[in-house]
């Protein structure tokens, strides 16, 4: 199934990409998607403990199973204001 991945700030720069469409297996969790991202971009490992996951703009636990067409974002700790 297709999902839309969005990356921001430090994560975006380390991965060298912002918005991508990905094909993932049914049953893939948000955490599983992060693991896949780490395989492609090992430099991101420092973020594993500190990122939050948003699916369709809502914060979720990493165990959440993704659905077709979900928008998934891995968010570093925020620093706006």
């Amino acid at each position, binding site marked *: 199934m297709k999902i839309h991945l*969005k990356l*921001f*700030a*430090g994560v*975006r*720069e380390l991965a060298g990409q912002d918005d991508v469409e990905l094909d993932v297996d049914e049953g893939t969790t948000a955490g599983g998607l992060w693991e896949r991202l780490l395989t492609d971009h090992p430099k991101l490992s420092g973020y594993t*403990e*500190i990122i*939050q996951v*948003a699916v369709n*703009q*809502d*914060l*979720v*636990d990493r165990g959440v199973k993704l659905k077709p067409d979900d928008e998934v*974002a891995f*968010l*570093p*700790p*925020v*620093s*706006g*204001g």
Partner: protein
Amino acid sequence: MKYEIVQDILDARKLTQVVASEKDGALVTFAGIVRGNNRGKKVLFLEYEAYPDMAVKMMRRIGDEIEKTWGLTSVAMQHRVGRLNVGETSILIVVSAPHRDDAFAACQYAINRFKRIVPIWKKEIFEDGELWVEGPVEALEAAKE
């Protein structure tokens, strides 16, 4: 009510016009300004980046929280993204209320909450490098429902 991520220069006067009304006798504006130094280092300029759809959603949520706590609905927030020079305004929060105590309290609540749950990031650019600033790790965690 108005919640926006914008590219352009922020104008406090314009935003106050959005929330001002005859029933309110107090209007508090918070403006966040780009500081020329951080942790003892000279900052040349900042770059802000947002997840705009989610940022607006979170701002709306802060507005809802203010309505629940203080019964106020006259709230507006704007955050600018892109390159910001020292002295420029990065964020505006305006709260209008019948009386000043609620206006001050709700505005302070809004900026504190904003800094914790709205997905926006800033990069500081120094003479000898640059750094994505990352806030407290537990901040966003607190925004999970």
